[in-house]
């Protein structure tokens, strides 16, 4: 574990190139690589078939990219966490993005739009005996939600809901298919949620009302 305080990390990393800075960079690189490997080990099911050398190379690449980003971002460190926790965030963000990119490389906008018409279909399949009145109630709620999605949301919001909530794809992956970044997609989905909530509340429907129709 690092014995440097936050101030000591900052001082060593920002001083003139020399022995102290070199040591701090080497230590930070080592910590980042170890943190990256811990993260990758938690997601080992996504690395099936990878050799030890492949994983080592991925961790080294992530570490190098994170180290560059950290050096460029040192001025933004506000000291409200441990320096190392702040630094690990860059490596984990990079490692997570890389795993998602490799795992879901061919998702397209067309693929998201193909599934739009069947968004709620699976919810009406009868897995168990459901009373006809209850099934009618479910159908009515789903028709209302479908109407809200079709009339109140735009094409990109519909595709985003299909990708994230129906297909269960990562936000990063859906964002890439829609040619935007994760932050923009979050805002798009947030706006969609606000619109849907407002319409449901305008009809005086609570979450409990709808849950009661769907819970076993």
């Amino acid at each position, binding site marked *: 574990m690092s014995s440097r305080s936050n101030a000591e990390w900052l001082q060593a990393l920002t001083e003139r190139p020399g022995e102290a800075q070199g040591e701090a960079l080497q230590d930070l690189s080592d910590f980042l690589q170890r943190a990256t490997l811990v993260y990758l080990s938690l997601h080992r099911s996504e690395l099936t078939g990878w050799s030890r050398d492949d994983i080592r190379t991925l961790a080294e690449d992530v570490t190098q990219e994170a180290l560059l980003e950290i050096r460029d971002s040192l001025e933004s460190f506000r000291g409200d966490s441990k320096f190392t926790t702040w630094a690990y965030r860059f490596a984990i963000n990079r490692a*997570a993005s890389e795993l998602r990119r490799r795992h879901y490389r061919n998702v397209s906008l067309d693929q998201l739009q193909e599934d739009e018409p069947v968004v709620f279909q699976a919810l009406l399949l009868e897995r168990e005996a459901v009373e006809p009145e209850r099934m009618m109630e479910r159908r009515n709620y789903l028709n209302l939600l479908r109407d809200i999605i079709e009339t109140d949301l735009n094409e990109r919001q519909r595709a985003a809901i299909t990708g994230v909530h129906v297909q269960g794809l990562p936000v990063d992956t859906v964002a890439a298919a829609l040619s935007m970044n994760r932050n923009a997609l979050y805002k798009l989905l947030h706006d969609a949620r606000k619109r849907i909530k407002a319409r449901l509340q305008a009809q005086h429907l609570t979450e409990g009302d709808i849950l009661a129709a769907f819970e076993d």
Partner: protein
Amino acid sequence: MDPTNFLHWLDQIYSTTTTEIDCDQLQLLLPAYVDFNVAGDDPGDRLPQVKAHLAQCPDCAEEYEGLRAVAELEAHGGLPQVEETLAQFETEEPVPEHTDPVPA
């Protein structure tokens, strides 16, 4: 959409607030949130806007879990060495998350 996803989505809709922090803002606050957690504080109490975002964004939530696991290991004995973790890729079990009770 399967029933589990639907009920989760419904909960996300009704939990929506007018002002939510976005992913960029979340990333800035995440290290402090993790450190509160590792120190045994209730991070959702200290940074409720982070907790709310994590309930809405699966990618940020996944990165939170990863960062928390790393910070827990560092706080309780240190991160395993590179070769130690690499060797564990060849065994069945992933690197365990720290499981000592969190101080009250």
